[in-house]
């Protein structure tokens, strides 16, 4: 099954991220993420290891630019997914996109956002990159709002057609990778719990209903991975309409899968999963937060949907190339 298409380099990068983050202390329950003791050290590590600058030279103002940069985008996706898989909420994804969009170089070390961050991390960002690529410095903003994942957020209305532009598509790509990574991490945690937790004289996973629920979640994850793989293929060779449709499809499924996985991994994890000590929350809170990111309109994306059968058939036709 084609899950995420990874080059060897991207796979190695993902393994490095996993190794590094495994030693990190994640934020305490209820605290704003950037207030955690180790947040700034961790951000520095991410910077030093080059995770936030991967897309600096990518031209994200055109689909041709994205097509030429598929390997770099794959690497950025691998980092984003691996961070979410480990439950780490850092502004890497947002900074990657903003830096790609910037027409002038930006000093490393900054948290940079753009409209594609949908206000998340805005309050502590030191720069904002506009749609035209210009960068404005940012002073720290007033009272800090937070999203479900305790990331700082500045709530504002966003243009509805943001996802139609190439930079918006790039933002969506990394967002669905983040959701897929967090979902995978949550399922693994739930599986570990039901494999070790003994009730009725045997591990819970031996109960058919429990095993099947896990199987169902695994299929949901595979479905999302397949949608993302198709999205990745189209970024390489697809026409703009087909890329936009793949972005919509992947996002729609990611929303579905995020809710499903968050709710049911908690179900399988028992009351223990609801505690501050449990690490499941790092994944599920991120899933809930990402699920709603930027989707403030009921009719989001409908203009990208097919209006007749012939369009449905051609838009749902998979991209044949498996370039990587």
């Amino acid at each position: 099954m084609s899950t995420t298409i990874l080059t060897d380099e991207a796979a190695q990068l993902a393994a490095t991220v996993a190794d590094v983050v495994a030693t990190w202390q994640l934020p305490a329950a209820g605290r704003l993420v950037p207030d955690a003791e180790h947040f700034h050290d961790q951000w520095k590590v991410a910077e030093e290891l080059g995770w936030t600058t991967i897309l600096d030279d990518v031209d994200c103002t055109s689909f041709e630019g994205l097509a030429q940069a598929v390997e770099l985008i794959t690497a950025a996706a691998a980092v984003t997914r691996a961070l979410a898989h480990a439950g780490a909420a850092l502004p890497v994804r947002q900074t990657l996109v903003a830096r790609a969009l910037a027409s002038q170089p930006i000093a490393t070390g900054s948290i940079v956002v753009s409209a594609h961050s949908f206000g998340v991390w805005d309050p502590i960002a030191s720069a904002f990159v506009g749609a035209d690529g210009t960068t404005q410095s940012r002073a720290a903003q007033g009272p800090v709002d937070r999203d479900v994942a305790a990331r700082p957020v500045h709530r504002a209305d966003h243009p509805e057609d943001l996802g139609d532009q190439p930079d918006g598509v790039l933002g969506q790509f990394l967002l669905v990778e983040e959701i897929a990574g967090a979902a995978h991490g949550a399922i693994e945690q739930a599986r570990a719990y039901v494999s070790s937790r003994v009730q009725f004289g045997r591990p819970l996973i031996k109960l058919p209903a429990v095993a099947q629920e896990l199987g169902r979640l695994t299929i949901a994850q595979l479905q999302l991975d397949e949608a993302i793989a198709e999205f990745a293929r189209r970024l390489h060779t697809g026409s703009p309409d087909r890329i936009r449709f793949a972005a919509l499809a992947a996002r729609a499924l990611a929303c579905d899968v995020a809710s499903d996985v968050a709710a049911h991994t908690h179900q399988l994890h028992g009351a223990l999963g609801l505690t501050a000590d449990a690490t499941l929350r790092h994944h599920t809170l991120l899933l809930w937060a990402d699920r709603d990111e930027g989707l403030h309109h009921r009719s989001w994306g409908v203009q990208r949907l097919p209006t007749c059968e012939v369009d449905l058939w051609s838009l749902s036709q998979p991209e044949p190339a498996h370039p990587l």
Partner: protein
Amino acid sequence: MTTREQSLRVAVRELCAEWDYEPRCDAWGGSADPEFSRELGRRGLLALTWPKDLGGAAESNLSRLAVTEELLRAGAPVSYHWAGERQIGPTLIRHGNRELQDEFCSRLARAEISFALGMSEPDAGSDLASVRTTATRTDEGWVIHGRKVWTSGAHFADYLYVLARTSKGEDRHAGLSEFVVDTAAPGVHVQPIIGMDGGHHFNEVVFDEVRVPDRWLIGTEGHGWQQVISQLAFERGGPERFLSMYPLLGAVLDADVLDDTDRAALRVLTAQLTVLRSLSRDIATALDAGHSPVTQAATSKYLGNRLELAMLDFVRPLLSRCDGRVRALFDAAVIASPKSGLRGGAAPVMLSIVTKEMQ
């Protein structure tokens, strides 16, 4: 898509445009039109993956997928050749000896003959390994005795594929073998089982001491279970597991009756369709590489069942805005809808296969 896939799609569309038929949901499980199947054969659109000397075109499963997808999209009357072309030919090519292949493959490739699948029995449904029909060796070949149920299309099939027990032992999976049986042979009794729509689709097939020549044993005696498992990837992994209701969805889109709220509900549906078409392509690619992607096929079948049910839920509130043709498609689709969670293996069993892999 390759140029070849594209030209195959065009060829199917041309034939469907010329043919006089009413597009249907679940057309591959519906009534047979042998002439349509034969015309497909004449135009080189059947048995694409089979070797040339067995009537095929030595092409890839991706080429075949292009054809099957377009046929299902068009709701074309394909049931006459479906099982034979999908899994009997490939089984004979994979496991049968040359004599058996020569006897059946070219005729199947031209849709001159039709096969039905005799797997399920009164006591062997989801648990297929518990088949009781026996095949006993004699001096001239084999004698088959027993009973099969739910045998789709046995009333028009010329031959049956039969899974039978050839020895009894501790291991239920050992001692099973596969056979070809002539439906006209003495002792074969095909009795209709009328469906809940009043139609004749299913049959019960009784085998009363039916003589079968030795050459009609498929593959190796006692290896039936391993052989049938690889056959299931062909049976379960195809696009018919998620495109049976597609003609209805297509008709509703073309009816131009969707408002913005309806279109929002189309988001996940089209996403699921896209994923399944992509999965289908992966499965075809795996088959081309000589693998037997059993778990992928089970995943696709499970998701396909969910998508088909979701399509009905999507269409239901739009019906009052649609014409009689769409409503008729919908009614037929509703009645056909429980089939997809059962035939080829029940949906929860597909989930079990994936779950087992994961544990």
